[in-house]
């Protein structure tokens, strides 16, 4: 593997999200908070969501981890903010497919920066880093719905 291959993993936009994370912090009026970690490597995310009338009104995260997990959290919060909860869940399943290396073109949802993470699928050891934030989101929605 050359550095060119590495470039498929560490795209510029990923590094930008890592260095300048969007939506980092906590929410004052959050409706649900989820703490999730990746026990095999120590990455940790605390996700705060403000869900009202089936819409994700706000999303913020805190935590520590590698460039992939933190940039993925940044992109995820950016992508789901303002979305219907159903659409956010759809994005999550699209993201899972993306991590399995499946083609995710021809979909109605605007994935924005998330597509930059497509290269992670070629690095099996790093897929869990990328999916951590999405797993936290899914769990947060499930918890919210139970309430």
């Amino acid at each position, binding site marked *: *593997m*050359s*550095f060119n*291959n*590495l470039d498929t*993993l*560490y795209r*510029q936009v990923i*590094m930008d999200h890592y*260095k300048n994370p969007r939506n980092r912090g906590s929410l004052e009026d959050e409706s649900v908070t989820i703490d999730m970690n990746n026990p*095999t*490597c*120590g*990455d*940790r995310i605390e996700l705060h969501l403000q869900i009202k009338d089936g819409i994700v009104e706000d999303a913020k995260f805190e935590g*520590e*981890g*590698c*460039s*992939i*997990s933190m940039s993925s959290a940044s992109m995820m919060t950016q992508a789901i903010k303002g979305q219907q909860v159903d659409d956010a869940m759809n994005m999550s399943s699209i993201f899972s497919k993306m991590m399995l290396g499946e083609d995710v073109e021809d979909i109605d949802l605007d994935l924005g920066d998330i597509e930059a993470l497509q290269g992670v699928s070629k*690095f099996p*050891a*790093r897929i869990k*880093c990328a999916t951590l934030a999405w797993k936290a989101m899914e769990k947060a929605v499930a918890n919210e719905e139970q309430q």
Partner: protein
Amino acid sequence: MDIQAIREQFPILNQDVNGHPLVYLDSAATSQKPVSVIKSLEEYYRQNNSNVHRGVHTLGTRATDQYEGARDKVKNFIGASSTEEVIFTRGTTTALNMVAYGYARHFLKEGDEIAVTPMEHHSNIIPWQQAAKYTGAKLKYIPLEDDGSITLESVRSTISDKTKIVAVTHVSNVLGTINPIKEISQIAHEHDAITVVDGAQSTPHMKVDVTDLDCDFFAFSGHKMCAPTGVGVLYGKKALLEKMEPVEFGGEMIDFVGLYESTWKDLPWKFEGGTPIIAGAIGLSAAIDFLEEVGLEQIEEHEKRVVQYAQEKLSEVDGLTIYGPKQRGGLVTFNIEGVHPHDSATVLDAEGIAVRAGHHCAQPLMKWLDVTATARASFYLYNDENDVDRLVEGIQRAKEYFGDVF
């Protein structure tokens, strides 16, 4: 030591990974296996495979002889007094849990104390946490010095007459700290406490003599010392093992079985319920032959040289933090400033260099170091200075790469 000749015994090392010759620096996680060990498994399965201790047929006798022969080899390898003191387990974790279940849970009570260190692997913390919860005993930590070592003064001030068990690692899997087991055992014994030693990171790399260390229990894994996965050893002093309760009940470990009561076999078999790890023990026996042929003292000296070279070379790299004391076992744990260890490990992997990144099953120690994760390069008898040079080059490239993208 002829490293080239040794490397030839490990066919796995002779391959390219991601377009570069493999540099395997993750032996603290698991070691590679020499041809002789691989062959011992093949020979066992091709010629001698049978269950042990029961069949009157010839293959059964051969398998039993090989299995019990392995026990005898382990006994000599670690300096135990008799084969009754050598119990085959699945690995270090199982061995430590056996003591926590079969000994601690039966003999500890409220008010008793268990002493451990913050540098322990999770497998030498959680069984004691659980035993403490179950018995009402209290878990106490022997504090670390700034460099990640412990002093005998700290051991003395932590251990009291309330202490019943002192559970400590021989060599830290993160810091490389080599703990003074013999002295710790002596202090523990002054208070009638017993010592339980995690030998997973020491046994593969140095001459271990449990009689000289005077520890009461000693656990290690085969797979970190050139043997297959799935086999390990619990050594225990005979008097303690006799007191200790079995953890698994069933076939192999019984003497007489009635409808409501049963009795156990003698040591060591009362702890080996079910069909034992026959092939694993035979592989471990072949691994011991291999290591003894090279010489444990020679391996220790060689690794000392390599790790010292690594410490020198890595300390010349700007923005690199090395964790742990100067005097250490054959591993170096580090972080590159501004680069998460997962990211550095991925860049190193792209260069064909295998290192471990994460919390190394030592979350309390990560907290103590005030980091979430680290990268670790660990050495074994087949590594040399060239591997260190490749590592240093790889680290430079990781720095360049992440310097560029930022």
